[in-house]
């Protein structure tokens, strides 16, 4: 079968698309690529559909063998990439020939790397998505993370422009982040003094950070309400449990929960948080829902403008 063989899955490699939507009423979470911006570029460079299936490799170490002639692009965190031991650029389309060995080193900055192939991996959809959610055993290959000798079917592709996103336009991975937050949910159960504290202090990403959510540590925030009836949790929701330490709930979040939430982080900034490692400093800043809508539209326009600045190499 034409495609790619996993030689070594590295630390954690998961097949993902943009996520599984419209299934929340069954209790299924969305999943999907965590750093949506890097995943978008990996597919875009290859001319793939934005929802094409790619690999999200956390921390690095993935090794693949091409079983067909094709093209790949690797984006996201910084690490060493090689094909047959020749070092190559990230954010760039590279040709691979049947038999070639693709190796990813360990991340030196950031956390998650996206490996896309021309046309995307052909993975059977479950509930309209290929996204792997380990906790649910749904998506990917039998609901699992990638294992050595897995075969990832992909079409043979023989003519593709070798585009690259210029260095200056690539997303930066910073050690201090400011996350824009749309206030909502139980925000009125936090006094103005508590909100002030929340916005004026920095928080630190703790080691309890995964695809479900990022636990932060810093100034504890008190809420007038401690428990509520379980209710739907949206992407980026910032939950404040009784210990007052915020948790930003991300792609693999549980669908319902009973802790108070102060609002939700803008999706564009969740993508930045997805690259944050333990110790990263985080600030929150409130924005209006209208401002958030503008930011989303501007980002979309910016992405399509950048698409015209891709260069051939």
């Amino acid at each position, binding site marked *: 079968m034409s495609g790619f063989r996993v030689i070594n899955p590295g630390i954690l490699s998961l097949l993902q698309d943009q996520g599984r*939507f*419209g*299934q*929340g*009423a*069954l*209790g*299924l979470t*969305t999943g999907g690529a965590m750093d949506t911006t890097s995943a978008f570029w990996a597919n875009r460079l290859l001319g793939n559909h934005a929802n094409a299936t790619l690999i999200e490799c956390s921390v690095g170490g993935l090794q693949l063998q091409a079983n067909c002639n094709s093209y790949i692009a690797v984006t996201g965190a910084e690490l060493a990439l090689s094909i047959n031991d020749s070092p190559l650029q990230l954010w760039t389309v590279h040709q691979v020939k049947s038999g070639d060995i693709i190796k990813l080193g360990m991340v030196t900055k950031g956390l998650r790397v996206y490996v896309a192939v021309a046309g995307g991996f052909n993975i059977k959809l*479950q*509930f309209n998505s290929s996204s792997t959610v380990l*906790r*649910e*055993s*749904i998506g990917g290959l039998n609901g699992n993370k990638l294992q050595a000798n897995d075969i990832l079917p992909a079409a043979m592709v023989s003519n593709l422009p070798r585009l690259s996103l210029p260095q200056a336009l690539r997303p930066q991975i910073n050690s201090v982040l400011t996350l824009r937050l*749309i*206030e*909502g*949910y139980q925000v009125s159960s936090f006094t103005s003094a508590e909100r002030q504290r929340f916005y004026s202090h920095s928080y630190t990403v703790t080691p309890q950070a995964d695809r479900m959510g990022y636990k932060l540590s810093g100034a504890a925030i008190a809420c007038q309400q401690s428990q*509520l*009836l*379980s*209710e*739907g*949790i*949206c*992407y*980026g*929701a910032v939950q404040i449990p009784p210990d007052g330490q915020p948790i930003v709930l991300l792609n693999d979040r*549980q*669908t*319902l929960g009973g802790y108070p*939430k102060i*609002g*939700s982080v*803008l*999706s564009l900034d969740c993508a930045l948080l997805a690259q944050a490692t333990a110790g990263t400093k985080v600030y929150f800043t409130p924005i209006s*829902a*209208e401002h*958030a*809508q503008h930011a*989303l*539209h501007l980002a*979309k326009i910016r992405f399509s403008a950048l698409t015209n600045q891709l260069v051939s190499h």
Partner: protein
Amino acid sequence: MNQLQYSLTPAGENALMLYFAQRIDPVISATVQHACALIRAELGESLVDLLPSYASVLIVFNPFKTDLNQVKIQLKQCLTQLSTQQQQTGKLVELPVYYSTESGPDLALIARSKNISIDEIIRRHQAISYRVYAIGFAPGFAYLGEVDPLLQMPRLATPRAKVPRGAVAIADRQTAVYPSVSPGGWNLIGLCPTKMFNPDTTPVMPVAVGDEVRFVAIDKHEFLRLGGEL
């Protein structure tokens, strides 16, 4: 708040919360169901996801097809048709349970703390039909209420690392069947052989929000015959 009063609160860049009076009440739950049907019809293509719970609905929309203000206007418009009368009643689902100290390790604890016999717990758990109030936490996990006040139990102080698939459990005045092996802090009283979530069948779940569930005791032999595993 009466059952039809609601409030709309932002949740995120493309999400709104619709809240009804915050209590566990079958009439409010039915209103939530009706609201979901109205919202689905009204928002159509711009709807991304809808998450109903006990007394709220999370509405997620596509921010490139509509915006918060437009959605609010549409919701206010369609929710004028909201009624507590127009409830289609859900189906009745019977779930077999093998109740025993072997399959329900917390039966003895409940019996001690409530000063009743294990048989009485089993009798009372089956005596009521429960409403499916919400589905979430994990795929296929249905929150059923409300349990006989005498069987009301707080969550375990230390959650179990591993609750078996099919475990029938109680927490506060809710009961549920664990659809898959997972950590959990509810009190375990038996095992149900019915698969609560199967991605390869249609429908994937035997129950939906608004359905009624009755538990029926079966013996160990029947439990094993129905595919149960101890």
